[in-house]
């Protein structure tokens, strides 16, 4: 019997006429695709199409192609569906995958278009005129109370004004990715970039390595169900704390970082013994209801001298009501993670079939908070496949204060979306703890690329604002009047609060 019915997904082709026989591909591949016998010999079945070898081949003689095996046509039983059955029949296992949902669901962002000024109001030149992206993350009072300052002006009344907000120079932050799921060098790259950009990175649930202490004012420290690395020192180092309830890629389920990934450094940061599995329970076992969440929010505030506390949830069906509860429970921000958000490892069935799109979640939550008159009480962070500055602008127009980027940030560091993070053998040195691989990322190089990416998107956002004739991002935030939809049904328009193009 064959060991597997599944044929390789890719074909690795080498043009041996051009090949230098240098062995660079052998050395670069984290998956062990290549054997070397006078020349590199690929094993197609191991290839993940991560393009590490292609990128580093000095002769440009490697091509990765899809294995275009014909399957008997069947729209119902796609090749992927058949392969999944074979795989599970072979192993009896839950199919594990990583990164974001790749299924061809409708991409709402791609059905939204932005407005621009013509004649009746001027567009603004963002290069030469002010174009402000500064954003304050956190709870704001409903009004500003002032009292005379005795010099003819006014000062804030006692206790009034903007307390415990975090200043962001651009409405883009890095989404939580734990040390353990990504390498320390990735964490360093993110932290250095966040500091240079005047924005934030997020520890994820794996604790804060001491190498990141110098950047702690630009770090959100996460508290998840596994409580890895959480102690008072950790809470006090962060600029803000975040309770992670769920993740867009795997709503409602916990996490599992296998013992092999718990090396000495990860072990120290997570504060668990080396080599043990790091298991995050599905729920926080101290949060079975909303009042428990409130209790945890305030215990974190008590423990940290009242730093901002955010709550991250996966966008699910009744996200608006949940978010409203979170705001009323005292959260300073609600982090919404849409169903296309990435992950370091998740069951495929969960990743691909649970949750709702981030566009819809933003619209529903923003409107609900407004309907209840509590929109000022918390910021909305939106994440879950923000692919470009266009997505960013549309998310803000729908009502997000800030967008978080994870997949895009990893792509800046080389990620090719091969969806193999869970293997721990990332050839790009991102989602691995193998020293020979992690050293492929130089934090300085990584930080520079992340800074470039965020700068570029920020510039593009400024261009969009300029075309819209506004010179501050708060004038786009929630301004759905500046969006129109194309090809969305009426029900979806209603949910998004957006008119169809032409109206």
């Amino acid at each position, binding site marked *: 019997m064959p060991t597997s019915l599944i044929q390789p997904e890719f074909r690795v082709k080498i043009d041996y006429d051009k090949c230098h026989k240098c062995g660079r591909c052998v050395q670069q591949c984290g998956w062990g695709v290549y054997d070397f016998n006078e020349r590199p010999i690929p094993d197609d079945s191991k290839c993940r199409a991560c393009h590490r070898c292609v990128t580093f081949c000095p002769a440009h003689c490697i091509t990765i192609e899809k294995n275009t095996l014909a399957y008997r046509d069947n729209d119902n039983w796609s090749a992927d569906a058949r392969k999944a059955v074979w795989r599970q029949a072979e192993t009896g296992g839950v199919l594990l995958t990583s990164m974001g949902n790749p299924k061809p669901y409708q991409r709402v962002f791609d059905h939204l278009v932005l407005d621009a000024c013509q004649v009746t109001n001027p567009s603004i*030149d963002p*290069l*030469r*005129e*002010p174009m402000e992206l500064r954003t304050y993350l956190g709870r704001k009072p409903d009004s500003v109370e002032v009292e005379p300052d005795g010099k003819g002006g006014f000062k804030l009344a006692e206790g009034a004004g903007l307390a415990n907000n975090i200043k962001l120079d651009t409405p883009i932050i890095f989404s939580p990715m734990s040390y353990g799921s990504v390498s320390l060098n990735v964490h360093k790259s993110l932290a250095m970039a966040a500091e240079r950009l005047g924005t934030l990175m997020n520890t994820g649930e794996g604790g804060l390595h001491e190498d990141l202490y110098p950047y702690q004012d630009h770090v959100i420290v996460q508290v998840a169900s596994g409580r890895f690395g959480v102690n008072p020192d950790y809470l006090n180092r962060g600029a803000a704390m975040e309770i992670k309830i769920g993740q867009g890629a795997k709503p409602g389920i916990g996490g599992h970082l296998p013992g092999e990934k718990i090396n000495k450094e990860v072990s120290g940061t997570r504060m668990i013994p080396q080599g043990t599995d790091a298991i995050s329970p599905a729920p926080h076992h101290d949060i079975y209801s909303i009042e428990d969440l409130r209790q945890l929010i305030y215990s974190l505030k008590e423990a940290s001298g009242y730093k901002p506390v955010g709550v991250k949830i996966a966008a699910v069906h009744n996200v608006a009501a949940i978010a409203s509860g979170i705001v009323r429970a005292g959260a300073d921000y609600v982090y919404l993670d849409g169903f296309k958000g990435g992950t370091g490892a998740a069951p495929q069935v969960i990743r691909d079939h649970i949750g709702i799109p981030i566009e819809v979640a933003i619209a529903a939550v923003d409107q609900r908070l407004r309907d209840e008159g509590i929109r000022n009480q918390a910021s909305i962070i939106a994440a879950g496949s923000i692919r470009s500055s266009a997505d960013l602008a549309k998310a803000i127009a729908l009502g997000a204060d800030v967008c978080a980027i994870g997949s895009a940030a990893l792509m800046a560091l080389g990620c090719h979306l091969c969806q193999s993070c869970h293997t721990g053998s990332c050839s790009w040195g991102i989602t691995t703890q193998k020293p020979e691989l992690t050293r492929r990322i130089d934090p300085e190089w990584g930080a520079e690329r992340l800074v470039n990416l965020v700068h*570029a998107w920020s*510039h593009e956002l400024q261009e969009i604002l300029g075309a819209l004739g506004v010179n501050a991002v708060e004038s786009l935030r929630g301004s759905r009047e500046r969006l129109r939809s194309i090809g969305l049904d009426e029900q979806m328009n209603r949910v998004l609060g957006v008119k169809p193009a032409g109206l």
Partner: protein
Amino acid sequence: MTRTMAPGVVEGYLKVAPTVTRDGDAVTIDANGVYYKQLNEAVRQAIDAGAATVRIENVNGQRYIGTGVKASGVRIEVHGTAGNDMAMFMDGPEIEVFGNAQDGVGNTMNAGRVVVHGDAGDVLGYGMRGGRVYVKGDVGYRVGIHMKAYENLVPIMVCGGKARDFFGEYMAGGMLVLLGMNTQFAEQPLVGGFTGAGMHGGVIYLRGSVEPWQCGKEVGIFQATEEDMAELTPILADYAEAMGMDIEQILAEPFTKLAPFSHRPYGKLYAPM
């Protein structure tokens, strides 16, 4: 300054020809209550008939005076408040305003000279290509933006008071001078923010100093050198003469020079796909 049509009816301007009187090659036009169209028609007729001086009295806000007029050796006097878009596209004449000027003076002006013995409004000299604009007092927002020079067309503007934000924005050529002397805003900075933002040609001279925050990131701030002053002084002398000011007093303060770092400040901004 206005006419009434019937008891209690007020009209700003009437669409009637103004009263015109001639004295040799000097023509005087009474603009009182006359709509701009009839007024400017009378001005053009006078110039076409060979007038060397056209004196317009009782001007109050009539637009487009001298706009599009192409002539040499012609002098237009405006007594009153000059309306919007005065001297727009003007090519040759000299306009002297005894009063303030509203917005948009010297817009895309080609040649000639405008002298304003008062303040001027926003968007003064937008896209000016040549000629000179002299203002005695304060000027508004977006003054001298996108001035440009080409071959022998080199626009020059001198403002005697203070200026607001976006002074010399997008400047691509020519010379823009700000003196800060004849001002009603003694307490305020010489010039607002975003000075020379996007500047990629030409030069700005400021009498006095400026903080880096007031300037666009595309400009360098220098102390004017002797060479610079040699270039500037004849222009200031001409200005002083036009305004009846003392050149020595103008030169009594050191000048700051703003010049662009690059003719292509955004070369690195874009990444071709």
